[in-house]
């Protein structure tokens, strides 16, 4: 029953001509939940999802989103001393090899 997943808001439940699905009677509890979900996802101003609806219809989406978001552990410095300064980069002197003429 779609009424467990969505709540009608802004109007008294009844007939609405929707641009997506034509005439819908929100007073009818037997409308397939997929249709109501389509209207909700099309930004219907007359539908609000319930916590049960989020759990039932979007749990999979939520789980995928959580999996794809990497968890970055918080950085905690071990010491509070002065900042570490890396040693200055010095250029290695180029070695010149002496060439001898071939015999």
């Amino acid at each position, binding site marked *: 029953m779609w009424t467990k997943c969505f709540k009608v808001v802004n109007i008294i439940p009844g*007939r609405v*001509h*929707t641009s997506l699905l034509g005439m819908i009677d929100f007073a009818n509890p037997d409308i397939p939940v997929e249709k109501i979900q389509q209207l909700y996802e099309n930004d219907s101003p007359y539908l609000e999802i319930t916590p049960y609806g989020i759990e039932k219809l979007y749990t999979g989406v939520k789980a995928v989103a959580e999996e794809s978001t990497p968890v970055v552990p918080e950085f905690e410095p071990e010491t509070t001393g002065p900042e570490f300064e890396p040693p200055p980069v010095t250029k290695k002197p180029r070695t010149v090899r002496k060439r001898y003429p071939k015999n």
Partner: protein
Amino acid sequence: MDFVDIDKNLTNGENMGGIAQTVYFGLHKDVQTFPVKPTEPSTLEDLGKMTGSMLMKPAKRMFSMYLTDDTGEFEIEPVGEKDGKSYVLHLRLFHPGLLPKILGFINAAKNENLVFIVPDNNGQMFVMGDLLRPATYESAGDGAGTSKETAGRRGIGMHFTYKTSNIYEYKGDVPLTPAASS
């Protein structure tokens, strides 16, 4: 926004003429929120459609009206001088019979500020009326009365107009049940 190529682009080849046998109407003063015209459209398509739905004030709603098939028409008429072009949208329809309900409607509507939502035969909808301007009754359209011949058409013809700077498709919903008190 840039221009783009415009091809034939008929959805599933559909392009039937005329409007559906129902139009939706309401009082302009009963509308709480009008659909929003495009403000910064990025595409031509965005410039041709409104966003949001027409929401009514608490306890108010829109109503449906039956019309005889092939008597309804939504016409777009460009008007104005060069550099000052705009549109007049026309809705013409014929409701059969001369019973008190339709007589009462036309008595009430003839001097009222109205809004209409007009569905066409391809599933598109068009709004007549915005925050600034309503739709108003213009004339009897194709005629109102008993007709002359016995085979004639008896009923009420109606012609409503709405003046607008641009034309848009309406992608929202039509509330046919009263708005709830907030």
